[in-house]
């Protein structure tokens, strides 16, 4: 559905996207993850024909994003970070507007169907400005679905939305994907990335890893040990001095310790801490979260570049 080869975008001297190559199949949910300024939004905008690539090639739904702009636009739905809704228009008016732009036939029935699916029917006459964040997000989604696109592009779709609305949003997305839709999204929430079929990690304009969430976790050479104790910051300071430890980071109240291959196991870590005055430590081997993977991978990248 999406084929990208050597895609590059330069803004003056800054290379925002650097030689990106990627394939996304029909029916996939693909998440592009990376820190601010990694180039995620620029990639998405190029795929949606909003930004012209400096070099390289990208085909979306079989059409070239620079030469067959109109064909691409007819087949994609794009939900921008700020949702692109008109606050002074009602829910129904916003939908009608986008239906007209896409030349949708039988829009009335389709609108009803979408309102039902998202449970937004009672709010059809409310101004978009007066909707909660979650409802705005649903409305924006509906507006991008009216013309039955083959691919949905979502730029940070659930930023700042409450957890329940986020979960509802994903339920709707799942249903759409089961119906054959392909979804390409960017997100800064790594727990959201866990819901994607495959994830691409972007850093400094380059795609550094592409895999399933589970694959990414397993590919990490370091083992992850979670340490809980009364004074995790003191424990962190100690562990950072221990041989075989790649990193020790505070994630919430627990410490996530990355151990190099052949380094200490959880028992050794516990004993090391006990021997240095921290006797209440519990250590256990855990599967790292995507956030851990992300941070470890970026740290590895940074080290490679520094060296």
């Amino acid at each position: 559905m999406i084929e990208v080869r050597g895609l590059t975008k330069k803004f003056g001297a800054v290379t925002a996207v650097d030689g990106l190559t990627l394939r996304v199949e029909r029916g996939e949910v693909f998440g592009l993850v990376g820190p601010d300024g990694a180039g995620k939004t620029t990639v998405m905008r190029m795929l949606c024909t909003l930004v012209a690539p400096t070099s390289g090639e990208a085909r979306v739904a079989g059409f070239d994003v620079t030469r067959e702009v109109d064909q691409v636009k007819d087949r994609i739905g794009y939900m921008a970070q700020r949702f692109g809704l008109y606050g002074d228009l009602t829910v129904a008016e916003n939908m009608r507007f986008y239906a007209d732009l896409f030349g949708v036939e039988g829009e009335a029935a389709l609108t009803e169907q979408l309102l039902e699916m998202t449970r937004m029917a009672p709010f059809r006459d409310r101004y978009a400005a007066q909707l909660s964040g979650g409802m705005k997000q649903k409305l924006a989604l509906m507006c991008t679905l009216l013309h039955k696109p083959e691919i949905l592009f979502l730029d940070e779709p659930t930023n700042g939305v409450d957890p329940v609305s986020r979960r509802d949003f994903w339920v709707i997305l799942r249903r759409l994907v089961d119906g054959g839709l392909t979804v390409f999204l960017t997100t800064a929430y790594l727990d959201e990335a866990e819901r994607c079929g495959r994830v691409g990690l972007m850093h400094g304009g380059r795609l550094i890893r592409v895999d399933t969430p589970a694959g990414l976790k397993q590919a990490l050479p370091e083992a992850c040990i979670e340490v809980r104790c009364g004074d995790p910051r003191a424990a962190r300071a100690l562990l950072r001095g221990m041989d075989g430890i790649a990193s020790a980071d505070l994630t919430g109240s627990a410490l996530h310790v990355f151990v190099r291959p052949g380094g200490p196991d959880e028992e050794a870590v516990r004993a090391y801490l006990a021997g240095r005055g921290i006797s209440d430590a519990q250590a256990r081997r855990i599967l790292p979260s995507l956030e851990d993977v992300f941070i470890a991978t970026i740290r590895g990248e940074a080290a490679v570049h520094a060296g």
Partner: protein
Amino acid sequence: MRRTRAIARKELLHIARDPRSLIMALALPMVMLVMFGYALSLDVDQIPAVIYDQDGTAESRALWDGFRGSRYFTIVRHVDGYAQAESDLERGAALAALVIPRGFGAKLVAGERAPVQLILDGTDSNTASIALSYARGLILAHSGRVQTEWRLRSGAGEVPPPVDAQIRVAYNSELKSKNYIVPGLIAVILMIIAALLTSLAIAREWENGTMEELLSTPVRPAELVLGKLSAYFLLGAVDMVTAVLAGVVIFGVPMRGSTWLLFLSGGVFLFGALCWGLLLSAITRNQLQAYQLGLLSSFLPAFLLSGFVYAVDSMPLLPRAVSAAVPARYFVSLLKGVFLKGVGLEVLAVELGLLAVYALVVFALVTRKLREKIA
């Protein structure tokens, strides 16, 4: 077509949902027309004047009676000396003082030249020169009457004008500058309103983040421009009709030519002016900047270079050259031609053609600007 209609409908909804801007857009032209119409008026009447009649004869009274009876002057009071007259002028209580010297009546009766003195407050040179012409006119008229009487009484043939014969002003008793000002004003107002209405229209979409979404839909730049344009064209047309009606009804400007031609050229001009606002909006992507640029770029040239205040023919070379690129200049000619001279396309075709060229060029520029990508 459906996409253009969708844009136009959405734009009309925006307009309807924002009553304050709507009222502004509809009331502003009226307010401007009335304000400028009066403020810029070259007609001056009810000029406060004092009379210093040293003579005190029937003849002198007849002269200042003429002033009192005229609507151009209001006699504030009679004074008994120069000092009083001057102090009135200094305080601004009067703008003119008519001094009739002793012996005025006797000289008139004797058939000699009888001088009178008019002192004017020259701070407002415009008003002063107008007052001067009024006064001259009144004095000349009086002079004529005296001459006729003299002739009747003496039976003599040619006689020199008895009162200040050096006055040679062809006084136009029907001088009404509003006839010239109002048509020009309509052009200026339409230009400002049109540019301001649309200057926000595209910048707002950029600022709200909706532009990105719009650009990802199959809507073509020309459809976007035409859709937005048609919504604002409706507003502009209402403004044009009210301005013309106000000109005719409030200011009594005669409408001598074809209404059809008037509104046709108005439509063409409006199209270009609206496109100009859209262009600024598309370039700046920022509402405040677009608004300021819109105001500046519409108001100044339309006001100064359109031939509305300063005649194009009497401009120095550079401003005259620049004025050739100001569409309001051609619209002002069209309006004056249609309103006052009642001429038709046979005379005004060039102006109308140039307006159409301007409109199409700016339209092409906006469309091209919008074809550009986000970055």
